[in-house]
């Protein structure tokens, strides 16, 4: 199956892609967070500088990049989360 998700970019990831968000990105589901990141890297190769620092957020929940499998639905938010620096 395929879901059309909303991908959000923050901080350095937004600078690297030149985008704040990308609508209706077709993504196979279920998918591991590692494969989801690889898919985003293929669309935006410059994101590779964030490799090993980034996590994702799926429906506003953090998901480390790894074997964890997520199930996505149309319109779900997937965010690229560079290292936090609030405060």
């Amino acid at each position, binding site marked *: 199956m395929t879901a059309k998700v909303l991908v*959000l970019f*923050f*901080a*350095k990831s937004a*600078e690297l892609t030149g985008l704040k968000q990308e609508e209706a990105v077709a993504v196979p589901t279920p998918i591991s967070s590692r494969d989801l990141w690889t898919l985003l890297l293929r669309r935006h190769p410059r994101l590779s500088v964030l490799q090993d*620092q980034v996590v994702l*957020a799926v429906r*506003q929940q953090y998901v480390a990049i790894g074997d964890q499998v997520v199930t996505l639905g149309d319109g779900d938010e997937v*965010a690229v*989360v*560079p*290292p*936090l*620096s*609030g*405060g």
Partner: protein
Amino acid sequence: MAESEKRRDVFKLSRDWLSVQEVVDTVSSASCGAISVFIGTTREDKVGGRKVIGLEYEAYEPMAQSEFRKLCDDIRERWPTVTHVCVHHRLGWVKVGEASVAMAISSPHRQDGQQAIQHCITQLKAHIPLWKKEVYDTQETSWKENAE
């Protein structure tokens, strides 16, 4: 604490100057003897010969709100006497010397509130989706990363 008093957890992202008085007033309560406050400000700093003139903040706003609610649940589990929690955080441009975050916690006695406020700022830095980049006098910028 009066059984009837509803506990408040208030999180606000703001493009304006932060009012410490407003944060304090938000948590004050006749049942509380202690209000612990922390204010984080932009430090004047030199990085590799460049001078920091300010910070530019951004947030994943709805997720910041939901992570704040989780943080408050965690605080209340650790320190059940904590009464009210209020955090105001800046977005956008914050020039050197201005507050980027102001937080206050009220509690009947001071020890709980003082421990809770330290936990609150540490956990905010670790878990709430907020980012800042330093802006230098050379017009260059650099995204920061919280230690940890």
